[in-house]
């Protein structure tokens, strides 16, 4: 009997995409185009905004009655902040939409936008978190008595005593510079008003189409049934397309007002300037170790620069709160103290990007472990081995529960693959020849596939989490699964078909997965946070099991056998050990098909991995070359190993970019300096080395398919591995680099300082 789970079958998504027949938002024709007039300054009051005669322009004054974007959490001192969809009176970051113009072509819309006369009274911009926390800093939002939007702290009862009793106190302070997720497809929307029905269809580059519908209908005060949101083929998201774009709200408002169809396609400059940013985080950690290098206590202090407003639905608290909760990572830390804050500045809104805060917290913990290894005199792998969680389930000081995993075994596998002794010999020889090679380890665990309880624990008003799947087997035995998740490159149409096919005894090619259209799919929360295969896959399994039970009951009756003896496979229901069988299509045909639904809302499951980077640092040019990269990971059951490897490859590439290249830079006035791909340096095929991937499959009861999330891990682990490798390479020169990206300029400065 052929099983499909675990096979690297090619994807159902590919044929259309390879032929150039994919359907992306910007491909839709439109009679009208919108262009946004954006603030050229980071802070100030709008004095006037005037369009030439004949130009259709929308400003905040036209949007009376339209709500402001203000997602809320009811914990951790969170202060709700409001963003009007077009700036009203005040601008708070460079690139903030101030007005929208409408024209008959994109070119004309650009001309119109350029012709708008904007007059401002500039204010003092607050660009960094440190400036924003100064007593003399202006408060960026009215009604706030500081620029701190969220703050939280905890200390376990025994923490102070454990710190005092430590043999070694080791400190690390890391800085993660601001990044953009940089999907290759910029954001775009196409709003079509239907005069006959009065409904509007918004096709857009969304990761969560149902929530886009809910949000826009709420802000515009319209009936949610009057809005249809379609996420067609989406050219990568990585989190940037999960947060609500204010531009979509204006687009739908204008299409309804003008009773027409209007499209907006963001250009790359806008995408880098005014789409969402991420990862502007500083973390200081102190580890208290006993004489053998075992953790006694951990202290952390987290400051995140969250930008000017709060992204919907996650709020401005997501990076600081995730850092606070998940900082201890894979290590058995019994005593824990941490303070975290999110700070408003006059910069673009910060929102989740693949891994969210975890690349930064992993960098903090893994730099700490390497520094501690030096102080205590242990190999980097050994100090990790002594501190990794061994027994599961494990409850962390912040209350997370780690399910079955393989932290120690996975690290051992990565170390073997990297051939550490062989590398050390090569490193010594190279050093003798004046070349600086380094090896860096990064070990982490990662919360994935978490349902609504996790969002409720954050106190979020909007609690995404569960997934529904509507499944139908038609009278010919073919299956259609309608899902609320919204994949955009992850291959979910293929992997869900594999799960469903195995449950129903058919082939994946007989399963069609439909997603991304609010008129045609059950309400769901889209695709983000390494959740879709776990949660939508779980809901698919539950729905398929219900249909399976009906197939088996009917087959038992038709074959005059006990239900327990029926097995499904290869398109037939068969009495086990006999040649008595009936085609599944025949069973379905006799009942005119079957329909059922699956609902799944799990607590979450922790994937784990160890990454190892081998680098060479050229101390003349300060360029870092990553020679080799090893990933050993455990995300539970592999449904499609080819797709899993692809997710890891892409994640690692983004992590290496995070470590070495990509940085959003503002000057001291809040002017953004990195608004082209010549300035914001995405890696090419030259910068990404061959990536070796090894798998373990710990089957945890926390996920009904056995699969854990895999979407973000590559990005989470890679930066720390690369930074540790650079530090390993430069140790003979007395240099330490705890900031990413470790650009040639930063390495040069560190080398100069050490001389």
């Amino acid at each position, binding site marked *: 009997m052929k099983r499909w789970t675990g096979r690297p079958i090619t994807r159902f998504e590919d044929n259309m995409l390879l032929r150039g027949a*994919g359907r*992306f938002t910007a491909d839709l024709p439109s009679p009208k185009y919108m262009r946004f007039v954006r603030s050229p300054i980071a802070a100030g009051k709008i004095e006037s905004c005037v369009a030439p005669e004949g130009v259709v322009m929308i400003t905040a004054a036209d949007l009376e009655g339209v709500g402001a974007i203000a997602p809320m959490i009811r914990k951790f001192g969170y202060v709700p902040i409001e963003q009007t969809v077009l700036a009203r009176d005040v601008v708070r970051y460079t690139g903030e939409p101030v007005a929208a113009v409408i024209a008959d072509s994109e070119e004309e819309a650009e001309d119109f936008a350029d012709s708008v006369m904007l007059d401002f009274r500039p204010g003092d911009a607050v660009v960094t978190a440190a400036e924003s926390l100064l007593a003399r800093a202006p408060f960026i939002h009215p009604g706030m008595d500081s620029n701190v939007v969220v703050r939280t702290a905890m200390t376990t009862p025994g923490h102070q005593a454990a710190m005092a009793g430590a043999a070694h106190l080791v400190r690390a302070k890391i800085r993660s510079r601001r990044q953009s997720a940089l999907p290759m497809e910029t954001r775009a929307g196409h709003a079509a008003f239907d005069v006959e029905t009065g409904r509007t269809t918004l096709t857009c580059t969304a990761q969560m189409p149902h929530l886009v519908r809910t949000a826009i209908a709420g802000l515009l005060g319209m009936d949610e049934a009057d809005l249809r949101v379609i996420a067609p083929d989406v050219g990568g998201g990585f989190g940037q397309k999960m947060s609500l774009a204010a531009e979509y709200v204006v687009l739908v408002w204008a299409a309804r007002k003008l009773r027409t169809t209007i499209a907006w396609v963001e250009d790359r400059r806008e995408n880098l300037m005014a789409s969402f940013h991420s990862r502007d985080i500083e973390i200081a950690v102190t580890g208290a170790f006993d004489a053998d290098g075992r953790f006694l206590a951990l202290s952390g202090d987290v400051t995140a620069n969250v930008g000017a407003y709060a992204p919907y639905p996650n709020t401005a608290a997501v990076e600081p709160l995730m850092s606070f909760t998940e900082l201890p990572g894979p290590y058995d830390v019994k005593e824990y103290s941490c303070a975290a804050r999110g700070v408003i500045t006059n910069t673009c809104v910060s929102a989740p990007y693949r891994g969210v805060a975890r690349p930064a917290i992993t960098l903090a913990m893994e730099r700490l472990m390497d520094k501690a290894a030096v102080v205590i005199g242990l190999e980097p792998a050994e100090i990790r081995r002594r501190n990794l969680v061994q027994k599961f389930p494990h409850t962390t000081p912040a209350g997370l529960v780690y399910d079955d995993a393989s932290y120690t075994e996975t690290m051992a596998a990565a170390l073997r693959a990297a051939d550490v002794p062989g590398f050390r010999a090569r490193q010594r020889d190279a050093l003798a020849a004046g070349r600086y090679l380094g090896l860096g380890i990064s070990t982490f665990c990662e919360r994935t596939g978490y349902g609504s309880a996790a969002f409720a624990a954050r106190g979020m008003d909007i609690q995404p989490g569960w997934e529904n799947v509507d499944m139908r087997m038609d009278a010919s035995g073919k299956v259609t699964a309608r899902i609320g998740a919204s994949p955009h490159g992850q291959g979910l149409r293929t992997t869900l078909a594999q799960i469903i096919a195995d449950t129903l005894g058919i082939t994946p090619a007989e399963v069609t997965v439909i997603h991304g259209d609010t008129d045609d799919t059950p309400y769901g929360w889209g695709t983000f946070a390494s959740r879709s295969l776990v949660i939508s896959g779980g809901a698919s399994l539950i729905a398929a099991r219900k249909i399976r039970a009906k197939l088996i009951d009917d087959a038992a009756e038709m074959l005059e056998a006990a239900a327990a003896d029926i097995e499904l496979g290869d398109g037939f229901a068969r009495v086990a050990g006999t040649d008595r069988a009936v085609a599944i299509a025949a069973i379905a045909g006799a009942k005119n098909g079957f329909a059922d639904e699956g609902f799944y809302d799990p607590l979450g499951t922790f994937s784990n991995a160890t990454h190892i980077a081998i680098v060479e640092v050229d101390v003349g040019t300060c360029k870092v070359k990553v020679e080799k990269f090893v990933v050993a990971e455990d995300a539970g059951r592999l449904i499609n190993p080819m797709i899993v490897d692809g997710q890891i490859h892409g994640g690692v*590439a983004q992590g290496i970019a995070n470590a070495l290249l990509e940085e959003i830079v503002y000057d001291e006035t809040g002017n953004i300096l990195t608004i082209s791909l010549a300035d914001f340096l995405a890696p090419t095929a030259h910068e990404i080395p061959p990536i070796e991937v090894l798998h373990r499959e710990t089957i945890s009861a926390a996920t009904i398919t056995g699969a854990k999330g895999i979407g973000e891990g590559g990005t989470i682990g890679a930066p720390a591995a690369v930074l540790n490798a650079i530090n390993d390479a430069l140790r003979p020169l007395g240099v330490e680099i705890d900031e990413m990206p470790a650009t040639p300029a930063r390495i040069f400065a560190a080398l100069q300082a050490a001389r």
Partner: protein
Amino acid sequence: MILDVNGHAYEVEVEPRRTLADALRKDCGLTGTHVGCEHGVCGACTVIVDGEAIRGCLMFAVQAEGAKIRTVEGLAGETLHVMQQEFERHHGLQCGFCTPGFLLLAVAALEQAPELNDAQLLDVLAANLCRCTGYQNIIKAVSAAARRMKEG
């Protein structure tokens, strides 16, 4: 003016400032050519003009008059082109947005120089950006396609 795309003559009327990429997408209706940055870095808009892979965003449509233009829509015949087949087999695409540009970049390079070795192919592929694959499987796919194209 006439644009000769994939062997078909498209009669279009465009403003002088319209790029070839926009003309292909909006005036010829060939939306398989994607626009990722409009400043010549990402290569999503790569098409083949008179045998050379070029950035569709860095050429005006009027400059392509009289040239033979090939886009992703013209690659497959009855079956997928060898390059497309190998991208599918090796999982060389995820979201698919950069894919048409990579396909045409690689096809043009190998049609011009079938003997390119893997290191030379890497130099070619470093011309375009992909955000999903970390390039691993694109490199494998192009390398496999190169062998098959050479064998004919």
